[in-house]
C-alpha cells in the first residue's frame, strides 16, 4: 500500500480535527469582561485588578481594549496563551481553571506594559 495516498489526507484531517475542536468546544462558560488601556505612557491598567473563578470552572475572558495602543492578555503560569488585542478592539479567550486552588498573574507582555501596571491577579478558589 502506498503511504503517499495518506499524506495529504492526513494533513487535511489534522487541520479539520483542529477546526472541529475549535468549532465544537461547546459553551465558553461564564463571561468575564476585562478592560485594558492606558492612563498615560507610564500608567496602564487591566480592570478589574483581581478575578475570582472556581476550581475547574470554564470561563471566557472578553478583553476590551479601550486604549490607544495594542495590548496583550496572557499567562504562562495559568496556561492562557497570548491574545493580542488591537487598539479599540475586543478579543475573547476561553480557559478552564485548574481543579486545584491557586493564584496566577495575568499580564500584557508588550515591552514596558507589565511594568506600567498591566497585570491582574487570577485567583482560583476551591469549588463549593
Amino acid at each position, binding site marked *: 500500500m502506498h503511504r503517499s495516498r495518506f499524506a495529504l489526507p492526513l494533513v487535511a484531517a489534522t487541520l479539520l480535527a483542529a477546526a472541529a475542536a475549535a*468549532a465544537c468546544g461547546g459553551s465558553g462558560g461564564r463571561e468575564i469582561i476585562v478592560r485594558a488601556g492606558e492612563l498615560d505612557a507610564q500608567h496602564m491598567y487591566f480592570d478589574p485588578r483581581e478575578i475570582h473563578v472556581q476550581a475547574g470552572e470554564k470561563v471566557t475572558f472578553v478583553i476590551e481594549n479601550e486604549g490607544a495602543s495594542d495590548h496583550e492578555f496572557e499567562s504562562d503560569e495559568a*496556561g492562557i496563551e497570548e491574545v493580542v488585542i488591537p487598539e479599540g478592539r475586543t478579543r*475573547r479567550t476561553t480557559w478552564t481553571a*485548574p481543579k486545584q486552588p491557586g493564584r496566577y498573574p495575568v499580564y500584557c507582555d*508588550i515591552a514596558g506594559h507589565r511594568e506600567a501596571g498591566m497585570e491582574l491577579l487570577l485567583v482560583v478558589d476551591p469549588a463549593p
Partner: protein
Amino acid sequence: MGYSFLITLREGLEAALILAIILGYLARTGHRQHWRPVWFGAGAAGGASLAAAVALHLLAVELPGRLQEAIEGIGMLLATAILTWMVFWMRAQSRTVGANLRARVDAALSTGSAAALALLAFTSVGREGLETALFLFAGGSTADSEALYWAGAAAGVGTASVIGAAVYSGSHRIPLRTFFTVTSLMLMVLAAGLLTNGLKELHEANILFGNLGPRAWDTYELLPDNSSFGRFLATLVGYDASPFLGQVVAYVAYLAVMPVLYLLTGPGEGSTAQPRAAARA
C-alpha cells in the same frame, strides 16, 4: 491533555513539513549523505530549547516577553531568507536532475550549502521551540493531571513527526519535476507566512518595524486568530485576523514576486545560468 497536544502539534507541524521537504529533496537528488547536518541542526535546536527551558524553569527565571518575541522574529526572518535561497537553489539543481543528467548533481552541494541546510533545520525547530517549552513547563505544574499533560505534548510532537514522515514518504512517489514544483510552492507559502509573522514579532518587541501602518482589516469575528484553527493557519500560512498594512504588503509582494522570479530562473535542463548560491564550491 488536548491542550498540550494541540500546542505541540501546531508548533511541530511547520518544522516537520520543512524537514520533510529538505530530507526528501536531498534523498531524491542523491545527497542522502547530507542528512547528517540537517538532523544535527534540528537536534541541536530541540536540545538547546529544552535545556534552556528546563534551566529557566528550575531557576524560576522569567524570560521577558520582548526577548522571546525578538528571538522568534529574528528566527522567522532568518528562516524566510534561507527558505527563499533554498527555493532558487532547488530550482537550479532541478535543471540538472533530468533523467540523463542526474550524475551532474552529485558534487553540486557545497560545504556552505550544507551549513545553510543545517541552519534552516536549526531555525525551523528552534524558532518556536524555546517559547513552546517555556509555556509547557509553566503550565505543566497547574495541569489537573501532569502525566496526561505531558503525554499530550509528546503525542503532539509524535503526530507532527508522523505527518512529516508521510509527506517525506509521499514525496518519493511523485514525479521529480512535480516534486520540485510542489515543494517550491509549499516553501514559498511557508516563507511568506514566516515573513509576515516575523515582521509582527519584531514590531511587538519594539526592535524593528516600529510603524507597520494601520490595521488593514479585521476578520476576527469570522475566524478568530486565537482559536485552534486560527492558530494553525497563523503558523502555516501566516493568518492574522487584523494584520498591519505593512504585513499585508510584504506578504502579497513576496507571493507576487517569488513565482515570477522562479519562472524566470528556469526551466530547461542544461541551462548554464545558475544563481550564485547554487554554484559549486
